[in-house]
């Protein structure tokens, strides 16, 4: 079995996962970032997207929101706004949110509202992707 490290994945409303992990792939600000046991200590910003973690050769997926990640010698802490498994995602709601966000971006009211809409859009896309991948399987 591959070497593992301790992964703590906490969302604002619950402890999503707390246990061993072989490989963690997170959506960082400049693309996906992989972490394995023995990784150097680092602090990362988490962007809304898809997160994957592998344990016992099995890969689990989740849609996550913005947040922060701290990697230390023995553990990885992921703190995020929300974390949802594919079967917990409300696809219809996510699609509605996506349409709403796209509309708001087109309206271009002011910089702040566009930034909000873009954040909402990336959350919606993350949810839709994670959710649809399971359906296609």
């Amino acid at each position, binding site marked *: 079995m591959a070497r593992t490290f301790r992964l*703590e994945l*906490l*969302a*604002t*409303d*619950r*402890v999503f996962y707390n246990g061993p992990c072989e490989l963690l792939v997170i959506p*960082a*600000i*400049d693309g996906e*970032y992989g972490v394995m046991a023995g990784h*150097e*200590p*680092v*602090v*990362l*910003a988490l*962007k809304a997207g898809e997160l994957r973690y592998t344990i016992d050769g099995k890969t689990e997926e989740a849609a996550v929101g*913005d*947040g*922060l990640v*701290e990697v*230390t*010698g*023995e553990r990885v*802490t992921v*703190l995020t*706004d*929300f974390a949802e498994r594919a079967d917990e995602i409300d696809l219809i709601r996510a699609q509605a949110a996506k349409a709403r966000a796209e509309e708001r971006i087109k309206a271009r009211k002011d910089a*702040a509202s566009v930034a909000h809409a873009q954040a909402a859009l990336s959350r919606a896309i993350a949810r839709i992707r994670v959710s649809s991948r399971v359906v296609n399987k």
Partner: protein
Amino acid sequence: MESMREIRNRMISVRKTMKITNAMYLMASSEMKKARKRLAASEPYFFKLQSTINDILNHTHIQNIYFANGKTIPEEEIKRGYIVITSDRGLAGAYNHNVIKLCEERLRKNSLDKLYFIGQSGYNHFKRKPDLAEIEKEHNYAAVKPNLYRARSIAESVVDEYRRGNLNEIYVVYTKMKSALLAEAEMIKLLPMSADMFPGADLTSSEQSSEYEELYEPSPRAVLDNIVPNYVKGLIYGAMIEAYASEQNARMTAMDNATKNAGELVEKLSLLYNRIRQAAITTELAEVIGGANALEEQ
């Protein structure tokens, strides 16, 4: 001595009040159960956020606008922002008073400070004291049903003000559930960040001792610009949830006491009422007997 009618009326009104306080007690206790559940669900995040930030700061020795090291501003020129979390309505015992008192102690009379409110009670209090601090009107939310969206909009606003230099320090004043029964008003500093910010946070002692310099990918600035607003939002959200549970707890206790007091008062009044009634009957009897005696003697 009060007349019988007066006492009767008072008893009726006390009983009516008692019904109201009892209903409020029941409502608060059912809300309390829900609030406790949410608190239990979000507390791990709230505590972990504090200890993680603590951990990161203990291993970071760089200069950044979000960190306390670096520039120093004379005390009388520091512009402080306070996010004050109170309840929307009163009848919660000393709950609001404690938060307001803690906040007022910190304000200096130079109006450099700015207040953000979650909950109407705090706003209503400070509205009458415009010389103490500036009041932010745009972000003035209700305390019921804390959600991430509200926390996000306040966080964005304070971080923006901080970056522009309109605010130099940011605090949140709220009520923390110390234990299942004890709640206490508390003030925590959000910005600038320093390693001694959360003395209460449990540090993972094994890592505390290990010496290493924290890396930031891709760059400290890019990472901090992203995680600081998120951290501020997370802390405000956690504080809102803590405060809401404390509020329900305070209201429950206050209404329970009020109901008990009303019960005691009704008991005392009915004793007094019965005594007066008895006295009136005795007097009447004495009069009748006196009258009868007088007739017999004739």
